């Protein structure tokens, strides 16, 4: 239906709504968008071709001036053109944003090889080895016990069946506190902890006692006046040397691998009877030929001397208030420093004791 009244007609304005003009404006806009090389350029293009003063915006404003019958077509034409321009802008903007980020990533490249390792600390292997040994026995239900390092002579010697004339009690071997008549020593073994344990709790007792001990040895490659031991003690009904062997075999396997076991040789300790020395099957060569012949860990012996052990002497049980007719027990003791030496190939005891940071750091936080 034609309008009843024909308004004033402006040929210029009407020309802007001609299909050719609208298409041209759209095409100009699209090509300018495509040509924009950066987000800043695109912003300018947006102002010129999609802003309030852009040809298409101006054309849109003229639609109202058209006769009503022409408005629909012109409106659709301009709307399509403006939508095309908006889409082109969005697409180009996304493209340019990706490009900017890509460039940023290129610009932000770093030299990863300049980063030094952090100066993390380390724990002393004698500490971590004691903890690891403790864990082996805790896993079997045993407990880890400790006691004083400055100890009463009676607990360090007499209670362990080392009588007053035992050579180990001389000042040649043992540090006595002044005056010696006060009967206080630097413990020469962790065994007094076992006595204290038996005096403090009733059997069954299953404990290990790791710790520091003292003897009057001048320091050299294989001696130190201060060193570390771990002793084990079990007192229960029906305990035999076989239980001792089983516990040590398990200990050996936990520390040195599944194929390792132990061997007993008769020996003598005042606090055990029968007594044995424990050898560890060499965990490097397993005693197999030909590896054993050139093995530096066991020096071709196939076995490594590891410690001492035995059935708790009934005299010790009596001094600890345990009825030897009802209970039997076993005890063992190993040098932790020595174990560290052969397990990790350390050749000089002084390296362990001097505190050189390189020694500790080599071990990290576990052994």
């Amino acid at each position, binding site marked *: 239906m034609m309008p009843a009244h024909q308004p004033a007609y402006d040929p210029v304005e009407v020309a802007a709504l001609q299909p050719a003009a609208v298409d041209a404006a759209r095409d100009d806009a699209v090509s300018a968008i495509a040509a924009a090389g950066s987000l800043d350029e695109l912003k300018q293009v947006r102002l010129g071709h999609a802003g309030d003063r852009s040809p298409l915006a101006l054309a849109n404003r003229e639609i109202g001036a058209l006769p009503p019958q022409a408005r629909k077509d012109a409106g659709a034409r301009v709307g399509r053109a403006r939508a095309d321009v908006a889409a082109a802008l969005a697409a180009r903007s996304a493209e340019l944003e990706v490009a900017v980020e890509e460039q940023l990533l290129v610009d932000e490249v770093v030299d990863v090889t300049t980063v030094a390792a*952090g100066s*993390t*600390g380390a*724990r002393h292997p*004698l*500490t971590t080895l004691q903890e690891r040994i*403790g864990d082996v026995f805790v896993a*079997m*239900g*045993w407990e880890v016990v400790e006691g*004083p*390092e*400055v100890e*009463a002579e009676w*607990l360090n010697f*007499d209670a362990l069946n080392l009588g*007053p004339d035992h050579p180990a009690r001389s*000042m040649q071997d043992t540090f*006595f*506190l*002044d005056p*010696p008549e006060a*009967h*206080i020593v*630097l413990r020469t073994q962790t065994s007094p902890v076992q006595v204290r344990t038996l*005096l403090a709790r009733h059997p069954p007792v*299953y404990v290990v006692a790791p710790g520091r001990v003292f003897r*009057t040895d*001048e320091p050299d490659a294989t001696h130190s006046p*201060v060193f570390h031991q771990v002793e084990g003690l079990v007192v229960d009904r*029906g305990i035999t*040397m*076989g*239980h*001792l*062997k*089983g516990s040590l075999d398990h200990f050996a396997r936990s520390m040195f691998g599944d194929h390792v076991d132990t061997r*007993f*040789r*008769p020996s*003598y300790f005042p606090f055990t*009877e*029968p*007594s044995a*020395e424990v050898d560890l099957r060499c965990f490097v060569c397993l005693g197999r030929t030909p590896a054993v012949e050139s093995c530096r860990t066991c020096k071709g012996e196939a076995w490594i001397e590891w410690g001492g052990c035995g*059935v708790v*002497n*009934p*005299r010790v049980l*009596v*001094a600890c*208030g*345990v009825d030897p007719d009802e209970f039997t027990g076993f005890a063992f003791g190993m040098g932790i420093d020595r174990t560290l030496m052969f397990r990790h190939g350390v050749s000089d005891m002084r390296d*362990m*004791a001097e*505190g*050189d*940071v390189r020694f*500790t750091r080599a071990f990290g*936080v576990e052994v």
Partner: protein
Amino acid sequence: MRAPVSWIRAHADLPEGQTPQQLAARLTALGLKLEAITSPGADLTGPLVVGRVLSLDREEHTNGKTISWCRVDVGPEHNLAAPSKDEPGRGIVCGAHNFGVGDLVVVALPGVVLPGGLAISARKTYGHVSDGMICSAAELGLGDDHEGIIVLDAAEAEPGTDAAAPLLLRDDVIEFEINPDRAYALSVRGIARDAALGAGRPFRDPADIAIEPGAGESYPVRVDEVAGCDVFVTRSVTGLDPAAPTPRWLARRLQLAGMRPITLAVDVTNYVMLELGQPIHGYDRDRLRGPVVVRSARPGETLRTLDGVERRLDPEDLLITDDRGPIGLAGVMGGQDTEITAGSCAVVIEAAHFSPTTVARTARRHGLGSEASKRFERGVDPRLQRAAAQRVADLLVRLGGGRIEAGETIVGEPAAPAVIALAADLSARVTGIAIGASAAIAALRAVGCTVEESHPLQVTPPSWRMDLTDPYDLVEEVARVVGYDSVPSVLPSAPPGRGLTASQRLRRRVGRGLAGAGFTEVVAYPFVGGSDLDGLGLLGDDPRRRAVRVANPLSEREPLLHTTLAPALLKVLARNAGRGFDDSALSLLTRVFLPGSGPLPPAPILPVDRAPSAAELGALDAALPDQPHHLALVVSGQAGADRTPAWSAALAAVRDVARLLGVPAGVAADARAPWHPGRCARITVDGIEAKDTVVGHAGELHPRVCRHFGVPARTAYAEVDLDALASRAPDVVPGPAISAFPVAKTDLALVVDERVPAGAVESALRAGAGDLLESIRLFDVYRGHPVPAAHKSLAFALRVRAPDRTLTDDEVAVVRDTAAAAARAAVGAELRG
């Protein structure tokens, strides 16, 4: 104890093919521990033969030396045809002159390599071709006798035969480490007994000899000190030829066992000691004055022992005396006045049994361990003395041409060994090996016990096993005969355990935390000296000066046990710095020893036939110093992270440790040695009784302390009583209530006098802010315009949050204002602009 295998074999019928290694392994399995096997003579190879000197020309040479140009018959196999009318043989140049034509000598022919690697070849010397070498004992490794060459007895060998055999050159020697309970194995007799036991072959007891004393007494003896000497036997041999040499076989055995041959009479006594284990003392009878008396020393007595040392005697020393006074330390060493010399013709043989304790004490008192004392201390067979004296006498007669005087003096009698009641199944119950009663009885009999098969078994140990006193001792004998290899491997089942203790877990946590924070753990000895405490600047009344003292320290300069870990850790740091590690962060976690203010009471020596009472145990513990675990940290050089000063790194590390333990720790300025008086913080925890118990200190060391210990300047040190800190750690950590409401952040800048510690401002703010304060953090310290002189501006960031609502701006402002007001009230802090 070193034993030649040939000597062992002389008393044990060992299998022909058994190698020394097999023998040693067998004996080790029986409890005689192998120390080393050596094969003397094995390093000599090639034709070493007996030669007879056919002719000998002495030639004097221009260099002043006289040599002997000899022609030697070395047997048809080795002789060369003579160039002239001479008999077949070899021409050899020799520098020694202690032999003549017709003598049998030892010739190393070309091809021999001597011990030490010298290869013998025909060589031109002194104008002759010397076709071999005539050997001395030293050249063959038979001792250090360089005095001339060896001359063999005519009866010993034929020219051309192997010389190694008559010289007893080659043997294998097993060295054993003998445990204290196996005193019997300090003799060939004991070793051979176990060797035969191990091989299941017969043993021939060298003590099983005919004792024929004849009638009457020998040299008179009186024992006054019966407790120290239960048996004393003497025999006499007279008419000895002082020039009689020690035969080669006896000298060689002594030598292989590690003793030096001296004279025949001395060598025989040593030989019998090695063979039987019974120490023998021989006296020159012509030098004894009156009867021998065994008694304790009297005050002021002295004795010059065989080693030439004049010894002041102790009243507890057991002596051998005659009319002149002491002539020997019983069982330890004889005196010089009566010793057998090269000229002695008459010998009194002493074979006695002394108390192990007496001998051990005397030997220790005089620092005089001898082969005799070693045996008496561990226990000599108390029924061996007569046989041993007979054996010595027999050998002296046979080798020295003497004769045994009739008569034997025997004073005392050994106590009969106690009978041990042994349950027949005890061995099985203790060892876990299935050992029947008959097997146990057989094993006990095999080691020499007499067993009466009753219930329980009545077991009498043999006289040489003084160590067998308890049923468990017999179990060990049964076990070693059956074999320790038979012990089964059975895991015992422990009752359920409770894992590590809280203290053990906390120490592990601290160790890991410090390692993660960059600290390297070290260990150190606990010994310090007074100069270390001086170096720390500890004043005379400082409790850390009260240290326990070691009576016999390794170093007289470090006789004390440390009361602070500073000397130990600073010395380790100095050592590391000296090795190029200036930038170190070290940790040391160990005990200190604190005797407290008063003197410690002595510890009792309690009986061992029962458990001590609670009071007795208390007396033991009361005698001990406190031994808490301390943790010490040291930071030097650039080790502080991110260029923070070392002192603040050390302090932060201590606070981190407290946080790891879940213990709130306070920090306040303090002045204390060994720290810089203006850079020392004390660490406090809520006390159990009093508030703010001090558990440690941290800060920069005093410059003088750094110089004294040789550590880098500005080294920081911290030490805390870890046990005290850990005792405050919560058993159970309470779970937090998490507020989901938003946090409000507000900053406060406060101007305070320069001397006011930031910590005091923070405490006041914290107290004023109340429960809504979630956290507070000092983030800036500013000095300068417009802050007045001698003042500083501290900027704190506060986070405020309520558990149940979103705080309004007004509420936040109230928190801020009350906090500021509290700071003003407490330390005069003014809000800045």
